[in-house]
């Protein structure tokens, strides 16, 4: 999701010159555990956009029915100090229970699901089918001139698959956004 604000690599938006070493931009996955109540998504998203940060992907669903908590997974880009700010600001919201910097954990799993439509025939059709096989994408739907593939994996894998499909008649893509969870016995 590209929000309405500045490009990811834009310099500090403060009109007061800031020359301190901000470090390079890095992409982070932040998981936010929130009370599932009306308006909570808008609070989280509003906070991020109001401070001029860009959201690249966003996923949300209730994950604990008993405690009524949802997990919001946000992918965003920024300098280390900006990321710290986002995390601190999110932590300040009343319905936010925890903020987890998933990308800071070395043992985090990351998955995304994409639906990819290609429209083609002849050689291209065979080639796209073969590549789908390599990527372990499933065919959900087909006509004589099209496929809908379902592919799951880390973002890099999905991006690679989409890139490969471009010359083969890529027509439409739908993605869930990133999900994440920790490996092993420990909970976030």
């Amino acid at each position, binding site marked *: 999701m590209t929000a309405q604000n500045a490009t990811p690599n834009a310099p500090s938006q403060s009109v007061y010159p800031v020359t301190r070493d901000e470090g390079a931009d890095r992409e982070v996955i932040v998981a936010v555990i929130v009370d599932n109540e009306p308006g909570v998504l808008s609070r989280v998203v509003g906070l991020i956009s109001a401070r001029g940060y860009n959201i690249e992907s966003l996923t949300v669903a209730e994950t604990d029915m008993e405690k009524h908590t949802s997990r919001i997974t946000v992918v965003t880009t920024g300098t280390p100090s900006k990321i710290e700010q986002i995390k*601190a600001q999110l932590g300040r919201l009343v319905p936010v229970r925890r903020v987890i910097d998933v990308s800071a954990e070395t043992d985090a799993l990351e998955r995304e699901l994409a639906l990819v439509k290609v429209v083609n025939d002849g050689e291209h059709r065979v080639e796209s089918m073969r590549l789908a096989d390599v990527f372990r994408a499933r065919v959900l739907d087909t006509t004589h001139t099209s496929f809908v593939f379902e592919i799951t994996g880390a973002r890099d894998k999905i991006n690679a698959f989409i890139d490969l499909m471009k010359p083969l008649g890529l027509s439409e893509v739908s993605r869930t956004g990133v999900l994440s969870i920790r490996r092993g016995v420990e909970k976030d």
Partner: protein
Amino acid sequence: MTASQAKQETKTAAITKSGAELLLDALEEQGVEVIFGYPGGAVLPIYDALFARETIRHVLVRHEQGALHAAEGYARSTGKVGVALVTSGPGATNAVTGLADALLDSIPVVCITGQVARPLIGTDAFQECDTTGITRSCTKYNYLVKSSHTLSTTVHEAFHVARNGRPGPVLIDIPKDVQFETAQYTSRADARNRNCIVTPEINKNQIDQAIDLMRYARRPVLYTGGGVINAGPEASKALRELAKATGFPVTSTLMGLGAFPASDPQWLGMLGMHGSYEANNAMHDCDLMIAIGARFDDRVTGRLDAFSPNSRKVHIDIDPSSINKNVPVDIGIIGDAGAIMDAMLAEWKRRDKKEKHERERIDGWWSQIDGWRARNSFQYAPAKDVIKPQYAIERLYELTRGKDVYVTTEVGQHQMWAAQFFHFDEPNRWMTSGGLGTMGYGLPAALGVQAAYPDALVIDIAGDASVQMTMQEMSAAVQHELPIKIFILNNAYLGMVRQWQELLHGGRYSHSYSESLPDFVKLAEAYGGHGIRAEKPDELDAKIIEMIESPKPVLFDCVVTQQENVFPMIPSGAAHNEMLFGEMAEDAVSEQGKTLV
């Protein structure tokens, strides 16, 4: 059925009340004594319930913005949560300025808004607006109450959220049919409380590290802010003790004035854009800065890359997101300012017992500070025939000394002169719109203060432009017999705008002159108040005394010199040690600085 059985039965039988009554019960349990409000269609059931309540006083304002500012004034002067009650639609949108003001200045306020009945929500009904949507980014938290069963618990939680952690405004939107719907009351003890607003334990290691730095500092400074006031009178006391024990100089932001006594020799005066020369130079040249409840606002820091370049910085704040936000610090201690200063003081004393702190370490620093002090940066050229605004504030201060005085201000030049020339020795005596810079804040805020302290002398130091933004509250002051004193420094200009136009825009005074001001004396009389005008310095004292002694609300039209500027000044885009004094050069502001606010 025996009598005792019957008694038992009625005891367990649920007592249900209407939502409006539940709301007032909850407010009562929270200790609310005064509500500032304005009735309307969507809050009529609440007003009906209020009609029969003797315990809660209602002050009818003349505009909802005034209700919020009055609640802020009440909150800031008492340390309690201020409460405002307004109707749906325009009532709520008018309240937005006050909510944003309270958010930026961290003032605990609960605002209750009416909403159209539940079945009408989302239908563009009469006086409907998406109140929770509109106020989401200008409140600390807000609620839409969907059922009267959750109403009382929501009110208790709202007060908890408003006053705990970093305080702020909380809004409760109550649909009209919820106000009629009956339910049981949930007491404060039984209400759910969010787990997120917990003040963390003080990190002992960080206190130790901070004391290490403090003991070996040669050029230390304590930079305090509104957080010390918000942390209660105990925090101000802790600050005084800490300063006394260490001998460190103390400066404060606009918001923090009064936490440390201005009469103390360790006091450097306010810092920042119009702060004192000694305070700003001390901030720039220090080797250890201890920021307490202050947030490194741009009015304070000036140019960030030149901000206090050679210092270690310790930052004490209750809000983790304030740490490292604008200025990276070495030690960020999260928690209540008072509790942390107490812990620091205890540790300081413990170390002092083992090995006495060498006070001589900072002698050189003090002589440097005394050198800056000798510059006498607030001085101004006195005048014989006309009243200088600075002189007016000086006289006001002198003539009200020793009285139980509270001061509010509007926003602009008069606000800065008030901060420079009116001195405070106690916290909670100074109410000004610091973060949002809301013109029109002072008059309604004074109402709120006066409602809390009926016998105190409450003065709104105002400008002729600002005061007209909420002038109608004069009517509320007369109606509720709140004898506030509105001391207008009348220069017939939007003074601060004019000053910036002189400085940044070649003296082209675009639309900053008030062509046709009202006759403030006649205006006061029209409202049923008392009007006074002073035009000459020699009549000023007598007129100020007349104002103080008047039992009515007073509009004091103090006609001052028109072209006076506020000095000293750190121009935009400049550093702390690049202050401007009276002699202003045309090229004092860089091209880049001109684009800054």
